[in-house]
């Protein structure tokens, strides 16, 4: 809950959290007894895991950075973030009911980096994306398929996804040398003609010399959103239904660039994720933690006890996801962990929209939210998409933040998008049949 300032117009301004130089550096969390690696899977793959028909078996020895291929039938692989022994391969139900494959590894003291890490040069575009997406960092929009147009411009994002998050700013400020090497590697991988660094104004100096140009992003949330940056760079808005990569733009976060830098310099700590932990007391601690560490392990280091009715939020306060299980593990894109006893968290109300118009005045995508939410509530998803710009939504959560009626607008928007995707998929399948 945030109390509004007295003047209405200034209450609409939320600024990104800035990296505080006076704060001590990140606390390194020791390796836990057990690391769990998670990967999304299709129903078919879930079936194979349930029948224990995986290539990876319990007892296998793995090295850090090794590609753990899961199935004969496809090339799904999980990058091992530690060196050790596999203690189990199974299924796990993640947040929002997603089915995930879970590989648990008991790490050893001595760490061995796998040789395959240092040959990313011979990757095709599809596998390079899968590879990079398992490195620490939040924003990675590289073309997934080979039939997409070539990348003209590579944008390194020094801005953040959400409030309370400083992972990219930390990389910009303290891992500059690594970023230089990482960007070189990325250039080779993507064959991009131009590299632009998009940074918040306070880090302008850090961005100089990293790429061909520096692009300053405003401090105001959500101006670091890729679509808003793309609009500024291209001078026109990319149509809502078009992926940014189709316009020849690729976005990679500063943190990912630094991780790639570690690879090209053969340094340790490739899979260490920088994230902010906000405890119940409100103190924020920057930590460095291995991907796959259970959240419970991190909280135990700070003596934070979870009790019934607490919230555990992965990601920032405006776009994060509430986690149901303290054993859920740190993922490559988890920029923050928020623990709250819930006194500050305002729930929804059952009021309808009162048409005050605050949402559309705060919307960075100029969506008529007041009309959109009425259609979404009545489940007119097609109309919402055709006439009320459902697809333009950046999912920044500002409308829901400001809503006087406390309507779960963002949730309804996400639900609407999901339902539309499902409808389209059904149509495609019908057409195929």
């Amino acid at each position, binding site marked *: *809950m*945030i*109390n*509004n300032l*007295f*003047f209405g*117009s200034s*209450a609409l301004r939320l600024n990104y959290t800035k990296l505080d130089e006076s704060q001590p550096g990140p606390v390194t969390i020791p390796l836990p007894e057990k690391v769990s690696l998670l990967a999304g899977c299709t129903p078919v793959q879930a079936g194979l895991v349930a029948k224990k028909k995986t290539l990876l078996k319990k007892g296998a020895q793995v090295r850090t950075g090794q590609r753990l291929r899961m199935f004969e039938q496809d090339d799904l692989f999980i990058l091992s973030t530690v060196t050790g022994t596999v203690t189990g391969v199974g299924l796990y139900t993640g947040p929002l009911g997603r089915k995930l494959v879970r590989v648990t590894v008991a790490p050893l003291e001595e760490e061995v980096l796998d040789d395959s890490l240092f040959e990313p040069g011979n990757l095709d575009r599809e596998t390079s994306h899968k590879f990079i997406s398992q490195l620490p960092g939040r924003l990675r929009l590289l073309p997934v398929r080979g039939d997409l147009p070539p990348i003209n411009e590579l944008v390194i994002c020094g801005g953040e996804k959400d*409030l309370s998050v400083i992972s990219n700013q930390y990389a910009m400020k303290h891992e500059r040398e690594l970023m230089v090497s990482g960007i070189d590697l990325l250039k080779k991988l993507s064959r991009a003609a131009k590299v632009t660094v998009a940074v918040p104004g306070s880090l302008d100096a850090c961005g100089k010399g990293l790429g061909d140009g520096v692009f300053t992003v405003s401090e105001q949330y959500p101006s670091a959103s890729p*679509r808003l940056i793309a609009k500024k760079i291209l001078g026109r*808005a*990319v*149509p*809502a*239904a078009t992926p940014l990569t189709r316009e020849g733009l690729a976005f990679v976060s500063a943190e990912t660039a630094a991780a790639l830098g570690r690879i090209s310099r053969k340094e340790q700590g490739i899979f260490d994720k920088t994230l902010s932990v906000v405890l119940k007391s409100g103190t924020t601690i920057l930590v460095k933690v291995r991907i796959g560490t259970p959240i419970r392990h991190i909280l135990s280091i700070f003596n934070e006890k*979870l*009790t019934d*009715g*607490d919230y*555990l*939020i992965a990601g920032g*306060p*405006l*776009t*994060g996801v*509430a*986690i*149901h*299980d*303290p054993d859920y593990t740190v993922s490559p894109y988890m920029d923050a962990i*928020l623990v*709250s006893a819930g006194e500050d*968290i*305002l729930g929804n109300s*059952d*009021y*309808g*929209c*009162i*048409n*005050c*118009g605050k949402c*559309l005045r705060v919307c960075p*995508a*100029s*969506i*008529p939210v007041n009309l959109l939410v009425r259609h979404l509530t009545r489940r007119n998803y097609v109309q919402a998409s055709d006439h009320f*710009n459902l697809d*333009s939504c950046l999912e920044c*959560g500002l409308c*829901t*933040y*400001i*809503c*006087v*009626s*406390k309507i*779960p607008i*963002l*949730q309804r928007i996400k639900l609407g998008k999901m339902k539309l995707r499902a409808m389209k998929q059904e149509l495609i399948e019908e057409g195929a049949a």
Partner: protein
Amino acid sequence: MTKLRIAHAPFYRSACTIPQRSLWIIGAALLALVPGIMIYGMPALAVTAFSVSTAMAWEFLFCYIIGRRNTVSDYNSALIGLLLAMVLPATSPWWVVLTGTFLCVILGKMIYGGMGGNPFCPVALGMAVLLVSWPDYLDFDMAYRNMVADFDLMAPLALVKYFGSDLAGNYAVSDLLMGRQAGGIGTVCGIGLLAGGILLMARGIIQWAISLSFLVGVAVTAFLFQLASPGDYAGPMFHLLTGYTLFGAFFLATEDSSSPVNTLAMVVYGLGGGVLTVLIRNRGVYVDGVIFAVLIMNLASPLLDRIRPKALGA
């Protein structure tokens, strides 16, 4: 095992809620209402108290009968009752108030599903029905005929409409601002209304685009009429400070659900309301046109809201 709670993003939310919003508008309205009650005395207080309580009672009763969650605690019906009392003469009989609050709360709001569903400003709708039903009780000259005050109790707008614009000079601007004129309980004190309006605009509860363009619409139209025929029509200052103009600009036209939300649409809406107000005053049969102007612009509001900026990538 610990049972964690699940919710959906965003987890930070603005603390502004519907009851808070209603209370702020009530507070701003009181800035004009309290001086009004001090001018008109006990009868005005009685009308206000009765209006607020019956408005809340109607909403309570309606929710009870249709078996809906009781929404009286959001203070919106109290606000409606308060605003209705502000436009009524201090001498209104109890049954006019009772009918008025029924019209505002039930016909103006509840039958559309409560807050946010109403196509018309509830107070303007209720008042319009009262105006056409019992013109005598709502005519200020009739209402205040037995009242004694230390200022002229002839309603300024009626006087000018029927006897020519020369009489507008009888009313000093300072008198009009301080509430020394005949009118609705809460609509006579110009200073109070201005203070309340500025407070609400600064808080971002009402939109400057509606209020200011409404006032500009009134001023420009009145000026043009005066230019055409100075003997028949009073000037902009007179029209701004008499009748329901200020009240309409800050409290009626800005009602959330019946007004547009995009800036350009709001400007057109406000200007239209202002122009219609003076048109009805100068050329229509009614002495004051604010109530009807607001209702007509309410009708146009969904259409006006189609004037909106292009969404990102649309």
